[in-house]
């Protein structure tokens, strides 16, 4: 599983290269990275699929896509993954849906990370009343019934992709800010910060040069775990009709439409559900892998303890 560096390699290796090497040795994480790459390719090639099958993501084909009783037609040469309730191509729509999921997931995480880090660093480093206000603000945001408020916002301003991204980022940044603040509070007390200050470094310089680089690992770990949350959040909003605008195909809105047809048309439900689960599953496993790569201690502790206990049991 994890390869501790062999003794002969004495050349210096940064924590980054070490973490990267550990991640590359983690087979599950690499498989999930593969899944993510595949889903990304699927999303990027959406127009190709449309051209290939001759169906666009909003063109309905009632003659070929529905059977005599008006139910969606199953997978066939014409519709590779079946058709939906008004005869649109599920494959093509799923590919365009992948674009929305990935876009919203990554953009919302990026936005939340940016604001979370800035606010967390300011709050943790400045202390005093600025910290009190910011920290309480995070608590308030975290105790919002966020799904409800998100629905209200989406309905009030009209659902759209940029709005969905902003709303999701708003409810995620507080979690990031809180973690960053905690880290900064402990980094602040380290000797090297004192040393920098004694050398005459200004507060902004200390924040950027001394504090920020030490935040990269925890922030990367948390961000990688926020991506699947953002994707799930978007799908839930779209499922409730409050996500991206209904004319854009999204996995969540496809599932909403499929709800009434799941008995007659399994593909209608299973294609978007399967893609959604595969994507979030892969991001979660990759996130776990990244955490283990940056902080291999946790796994070793577990293993060491288990061995000790087993040894004890054997003696008994």
């Amino acid at each position: 599983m994890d390869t501790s560096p062999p003794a002969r390699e004495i050349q210096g290796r940064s924590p980054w290269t070490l973490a990267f090497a550990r991640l590359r040795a983690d087979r599950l994480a690499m498989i999930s990275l593969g899944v993510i790459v595949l889903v990304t390719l699927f999303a990027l090639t959406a127009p190709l699929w449309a051209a290939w099958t001759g169906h666009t993501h909003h063109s309905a084909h009632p003659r070929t896509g529905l059977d005599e009783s008006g139910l969606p037609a199953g997978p066939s040469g014409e519709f590779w993954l079946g058709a939906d309730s008004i005869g649109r191509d599920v494959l093509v729509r799923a590919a365009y849906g992948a674009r929305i999921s990935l876009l919203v997931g990554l953009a919302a995480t990026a936005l939340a990370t940016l604001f979370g880090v800035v606010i967390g660093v300011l709050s943790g480093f400045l202390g005093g009343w600025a910290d009190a206000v910011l920290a309480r603000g995070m608590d308030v945001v975290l105790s919002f019934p966020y799904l409800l408020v998100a629905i209200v916002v989406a309905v009030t301003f009209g659902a759209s992709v940029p709005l969905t991204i902003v709303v999701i980022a708003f409810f995620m940044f507080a979690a990031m800010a809180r973690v960053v603040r905690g880290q900064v509070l402990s980094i602040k007390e380290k000797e090297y910060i004192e040393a920098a200050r004694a050398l005459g470094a200004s507060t902004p310089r200390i924040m950027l040069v001394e504090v920020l680089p030490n935040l990269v690992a925890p922030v990367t770990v948390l961000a990688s775990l926020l991506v699947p949350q953002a994707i799930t959040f978007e799908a839930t909003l779209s499922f409730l009709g409050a996500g991206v605008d209904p004319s854009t195909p999204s996995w969540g809105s496809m599932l909403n439409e499929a709800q009434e047809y799941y008995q007659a048309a399994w593909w209608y439900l299973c294609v978007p559900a399967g893609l959604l689960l595969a994507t979030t599953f892969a991001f979660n496993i990759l996130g776990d892998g990244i955490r283990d790569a940056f902080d291999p201690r946790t796994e070793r502790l577990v293993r060491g303890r288990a061995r000790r206990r087993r040894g004890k049991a054997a003696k008994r």
Partner: protein
Amino acid sequence: MIRFVVRRLAFGVVVLWVVSTAVFFLVFVAAGKPERVIGGPRATTETLRLIRRNLGLDEPLIVQYARFLGRLLQGDLGQSYINGAPVASMIGGRLQTTVVLVLGASVLWFAGGVLTGVLSATRARSFFDRLATLFVLAGLSMPAFVVALLMLYVLFSKAGDAGIHLFEPGPPLQENFWKRMTLPWLALAFLLMAGYTRLTRGAMLDVLGEDYIRTARSKGLPERRVVYRHALRAALTPVVTQFGVDVGVLIGSTIVTEKVFGLQGVGQLVVQSITVGDAPVILGVVLAVALCVVVANLLVDIAYSYLDPRVRLS
């Protein structure tokens, strides 16, 4: 202790105030055209103006806001735009279903999550542990509605329309109670259980390495007593903290679960109100949910000091 409770309550009031203000300006100001909803598509300009006047919407915003806060302090959530019923009683009528759903799911998920966590911590790296880890990741990756939909699909795709009737909206809760609630409970519990399994496992592994556990073992206590009495109590503190945080998440997932299973609870009420733009009802539900979150967090903090006597509430 009392000072602590008072301070937390004060913070809770601040949260409620922020939430209500934010939602007030969102639904009343930005959404803004309730007279269209009430008057219907054929109302004349004159009727629309009259409706606005009756609702007090022609007054300056700040006056409306003050009036809203004043009513709120008296516990009055206002009336629905659609049918004029008091919002408080509309929520009250739906509360039973949601409470039953949430409580049942909480019991299942807390008990299931903690038990799985303990078992996989005491058997770290075993087959069971690996299976549990996989299950945790699956649970963490699944949105509530996907779990619910897949459950319906797996159970009822072959059984003809037996399932559809069971989950048609409408009949009172008492009818077919157990049959109708089991799936929603499981769907809701499954998703949150995962996080608790992971949390309990981690906390148990930490605690089992402590010196007092070794002492308990060397006293010759049976392993079961060491694990469930000595270790679990200490391991529960982070789990209980998380429970408080998750009340909000749970209520969010309830909205979706109610929709999938056709349960007429508070979640369905708010979704329906949002689609027709019934601002007072939306606001009422959001406030009620926020209140639940605040109270739950307070209870969790108090429970915390019972579990871990070192924690002083001050």
